[in-house]
């Protein structure tokens, strides 16, 4: 990855707990920007964030998280009108140009009754939180989305 301009030690950790369009698009944008800059990115998908990677969920949640009233509907309309990219396609692209790992939270898997086969293949595996924390303990930056 010498051509990307970052030292291999630079790492971003992201805990994703949401699955609405207004969270997933900024999430995918942030992650892909970090990967483009040569950072290694590790994502821990839990609860609603894990549901975003469920096979049956479809890739484009048009739903904006509640509490935004009319602004929410306006955003949904704007995303459609401006042909918003698919957040999953953004992640796929990021995976193809750099180091992006996506892990499913094992506790969420239990709670939601999901098996590894229920998840999109972009998910690298199921891990417990301690494993994720250990993997990202030296991350330069951590986000909770």
């Amino acid at each position, binding site marked *: 990855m*010498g051509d*990307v*301009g970052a030292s291999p030690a630079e790492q971003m950790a992201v805990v994703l707990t949401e699955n609405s369009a207004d969270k997933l698009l900024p999430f995918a944008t942030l992650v892909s920007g970090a990967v*483009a*800059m*040569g950072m290694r990115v590790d994502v821990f998908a839990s609860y609603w964030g894990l549901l975003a990677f469920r096979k049956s969920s479809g890739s484009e949640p048009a739903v904006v998280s509640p509490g935004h009233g009319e602004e929410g509907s306006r955003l949904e309309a704007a995303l459609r009108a401006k042909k918003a990219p698919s957040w999953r396609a953004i992640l796929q692209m990021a995976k193809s140009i750099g180091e992006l790992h996506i892990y499913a939270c094992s506790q969420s898997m239990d709670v939601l009754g999901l098996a590894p086969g229920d998840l999109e293949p972009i998910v690298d595996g199921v891990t417990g939180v301690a494993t994720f924390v250990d993997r990202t303990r030296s991350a330069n930056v951590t986000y909770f989305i």
Partner: protein
Amino acid sequence: MSGADPPPGTATNPPAASRLIVDARGSWCPGPLMELVRVIREEPVGTEFELLSSDEGSRKDVPMWLEKAGHRLVEFRSDSGFDRYVVQKTHE
């Protein structure tokens, strides 16, 4: 370049030049940068790319990435509705 336009982000070799066109018009931030990172990884040192982008954020992101990654911005030109970045890969 008439008739079949390549899909966004596809690198094609125009007959009149040795530059690879990377058409990322319509791609949201940081799509154009990701396309550029991808083709620079794939093509040999010395290759020139012409990145087309309609994303405003790329105006800062692309030159900043090029400086960090150590590749050359040969030319920047703003056209109607989109920008052209001519970039040369200078090392592996």
